[in-house]
């Protein structure tokens, strides 16, 4: 590291869902501080659920995040179903996967196009991009609408998945609706191809730092719901042992909990899934990966956004396959679960857009929630973000301060962190 003084303090990083600060202090070439400070309001997750009937858990938790509402609802339902010993039908599993794909595409397209792309086009946000490259932004909105409509088709409405319930669905799509939607998914392949072509042209920063990549895993499919926890360091765990993976701890400069497993930090999210589950990707998604020059083990964290685009391709293709299966079997009304008067404990896990998410509930024999724990993906990434920052800094230290700041911001944004995305107050100034 050369003899420089550097003081960077990015307060409330923009284009990140919530509040996070980048603090870098270099004095006479010596690194004094390089920290990722997270100012997250405590979530009171357990307090929100304790004493509530189990039937409310998925509806309450789906509001934790406006972008991952299906993910939270699904993890919540799986935790509840495991606690109560509820088996779900194949139809329910397929419909949940279909919705999950919708939310995955929805979240990824927002991140890749609206939050990451402006960095590469040299503009401060998606607003100037809408003027300079409207076709790019309109494509993003087209994909977003497709994804939102897919969720609405299954869940009954946009944003919050009210039709999802313990053991099944209170509303079912018709075969006719599914078939019509299939046509839209096939037509969306063109937008997927354009997305990969666009990403191929972007000058991704060069940076390598191998870490432990943690995700769900299944033998027969690219895992988003259920399965086991797997890491690229060779560990596997049953979902009920999730605490052995997350090992949450507190650090002085952050109000959010951090996590570590086999190394000082680990990474969750699209790149972790890609690294663990490449073999289970749809062939078209593998072609997309090849286009982007990606094959495991990818150790450039910036490419998390590229992995998201590959997953979008996978989700479109897998959604088509799921619809074919559902149409083939026909949609059947199924009896909904009735509480049997016996509680228990259960863990539910989903790999949501930003990574692996755990819900863990204890339900009593009256059907009331007595204990709840939730580990969100972003908290599991905090330590890895900081480790990446500390590895990247010496490589860019000779550049102008604005450039260092910019690349650090890009690095953090690549993780798509969601720190406290559940509130937004409109400020109004009357003129």
């Amino acid at each position, binding site marked *: 590291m050369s003899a420089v003084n550097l003081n960077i303090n990015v307060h409330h990083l923009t284009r990140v869902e919530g509040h996070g600060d980048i603090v870098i202090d270099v004095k006479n070439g010596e690194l004094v501080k390089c920290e990722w400070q997270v100012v997250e309001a405590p979530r009171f997750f357990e307090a929100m659920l304790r004493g509530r009937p189990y039937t409310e858990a998925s509806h309450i938790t789906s509001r934790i995040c406006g972008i991952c509402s299906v993910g939270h609802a699904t993890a919540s339902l799986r935790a509840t179903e495991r606690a109560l010993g509820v088996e779900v039908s194949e139809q329910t599993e397929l419909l949940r996967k279909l919705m999950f794909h919708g939310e995955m595409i929805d979240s990824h397209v927002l991140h890749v196009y609206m939050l990451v792309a402006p960095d590469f086009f040299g503009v*401060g946000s998606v607003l100037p991009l809408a003027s300079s490259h409207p076709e790019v932004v309109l494509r993003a909105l087209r994909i977003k609408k497709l994804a939102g409509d897919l969720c609405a088709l299954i869940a009954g409405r946009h944003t919050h998945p009210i039709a999802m319930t313990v053991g099944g669905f209170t509303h079912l799509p018709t075969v006719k609706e599914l078939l*019509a939607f299939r046509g839209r998914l096939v037509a969306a392949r063109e937008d997927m191809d354009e997305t990969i072509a666009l990403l191929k042209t972007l000058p991704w920063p060069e940076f390598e730092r191998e870490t432990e990549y943690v995700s769900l895993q299944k033998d027969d499919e690219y895992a988003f719901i259920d399965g086991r926890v797997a890491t690229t360091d060779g560990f596997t765990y049953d979902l009920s042992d999730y605490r052995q993976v997350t090992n949450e701890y507190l650090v002085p400069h952050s109000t959010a909990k951090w996590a570590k497993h086999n190394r000082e930090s680990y990474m969750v999210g699209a790149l972790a899934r890609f690294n663990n589950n490449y073999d289970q990707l749809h062939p078209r998604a593998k072609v997309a990966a090849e286009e982007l020059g990606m094959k495991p083990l990818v150790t450039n964290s910036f490419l998390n956004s590229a992995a998201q685009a590959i997953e979008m391709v996978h989700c479109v293709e897998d959604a088509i396959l799921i619809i074919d299966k559902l149409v083939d079997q026909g949609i059947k009304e199924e009896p909904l679960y009735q509480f049997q008067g016996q509680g228990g404990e259960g863990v539910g896990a989903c790999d949501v857009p930003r990574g692996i998410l755990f819900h863990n509930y204890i339900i009593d024999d009256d059907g009331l929630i007595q204990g709840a724990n939730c580990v969100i993906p972003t908290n599991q990434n905090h330590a890895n973000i900081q480790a990446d920052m500390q590895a990247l800094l010496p490589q860019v230290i000779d550049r102008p301060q604005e450039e260092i700041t910019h690349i650090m911001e890009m690095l953090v944004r690549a993780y798509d962190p969601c720190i406290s995305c559940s509130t937004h107050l409109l400020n109004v100034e009357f003129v």
Partner: protein
Amino acid sequence: MTDGAGRTKPCPTVVIGLGNPLRGDDGVGVRLVQALAQRALPADVEVLDGGTQGLGLVTLLEGRQRAILVDAAQVGRAPGQFVRFRLGEARLPGSDGRLSIHAAGLSDALRLAEALGILPEEVIVFGVQPAAAEWDRGLSPEVKAALPRLLEAVLAEVAVGG
């Protein structure tokens, strides 16, 4: 309201309630549309729970003639009081051009819709002054007490254009 392919047929008028019901008064928009959905409304009016999806709102605005948005907002009034204004009658500071989809979801979504030329002709905002927006599942007494008045005002708005 969707067609056979789950494609939203844009109703000419949309009422969107925004916010997070887990964040105290931030949830007032969502509570309002939940109440509104129980009332008889003209056929050309769609009511949506917009939650906290930020820029995603743009896809809900596309193709509409009129959008009525209800959100908790710092409008400089006493808690529970609300202000109705048209877009253009007030400044909605976003993130000074730098975009955070967290803090200013609505104002940024409106700007993006404008930049893309898909903003509805008429955008009306009901901004409700919150007392508190901390993690809490209920509305404050002030905002709760204001809900019936707010509902009548939004119903009147819907009827005028309908």
